[in-house]
């Protein structure tokens, strides 16, 4: 079955430190991949997406993600975290067709001053 796994439920980093959030997928073929962020009481906001081409994707708010086919991964990174980045992050994928997204369970990020 198609699935998206985010191994880390909760991550805490210090402000200014680098960040990497992990995402693995299980699909028959390479899916289309997305990262969303959800702040408390807010809807999901798209950070970036990967369809094809360059495996390093730049997104909004200084985030980037790297697609690695050999590892079935699409990890999200940021070189220097700000306190305002504290939120929940969701990795999602679809295989085309009618754009049905399958989400991971999310990683909650806490940022220490």
């Amino acid at each position, binding site marked *: 079955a198609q699935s998206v796994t985010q191994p880390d439920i909760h991550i805490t980093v210090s402000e200014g430190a680098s960040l990497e959030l992990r995402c693995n997928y299980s699909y028959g073929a390479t899916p289309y991949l997305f990262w969303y962020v959800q702040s408390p*009481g807010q*809807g999901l906001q798209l950070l970036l997406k990967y369809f094809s081409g360059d495996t390093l994707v730049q997104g909004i708010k200084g985030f980037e993600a790297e697609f690695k086919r050999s590892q079935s991964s699409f990890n999200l990174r940021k070189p220097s975290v700000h306190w305002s980045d504290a939120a929940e992050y*969701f990795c999602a994928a679809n295989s085309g*067709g*009618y*754009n049905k997204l399958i989400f991971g369970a*999310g990683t909650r990020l806490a940022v220490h001053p």
Partner: protein
Amino acid sequence: EAGVAQSPRYKIIEKRQSVAFWCNPISGHATLYWYQQILGQGPKLLIQFQNNGVVDDSQLPKDRFSAERLKGVDSTLKIQPAKLEDSAVYLCASSPLGGGGVTDTQYFGPGTRLTVL
């Protein structure tokens, strides 16, 4: 441009009662989605409309959940009767294209938090 609007933002009901949620998508967006997000989980698609028609409702519990999209614009999601396990955030999203293409970004509303006692 206005975003996806949802109401109410919060709802508390007792089990076996009924409840309805409303969604107004971004103007001109052809596709509308309803997701259920249970605490500690990612959103799960309940139903997807393309204009007036249903594209995917395979994960909608049809014995108690119903949804409609009138005139291809606003949509309502109803639960009748509610169960304890229906406690969740219900998210509405819309996307601009009608063909469901994979480049068709979904824009999410703030959600409705439902608590069933």
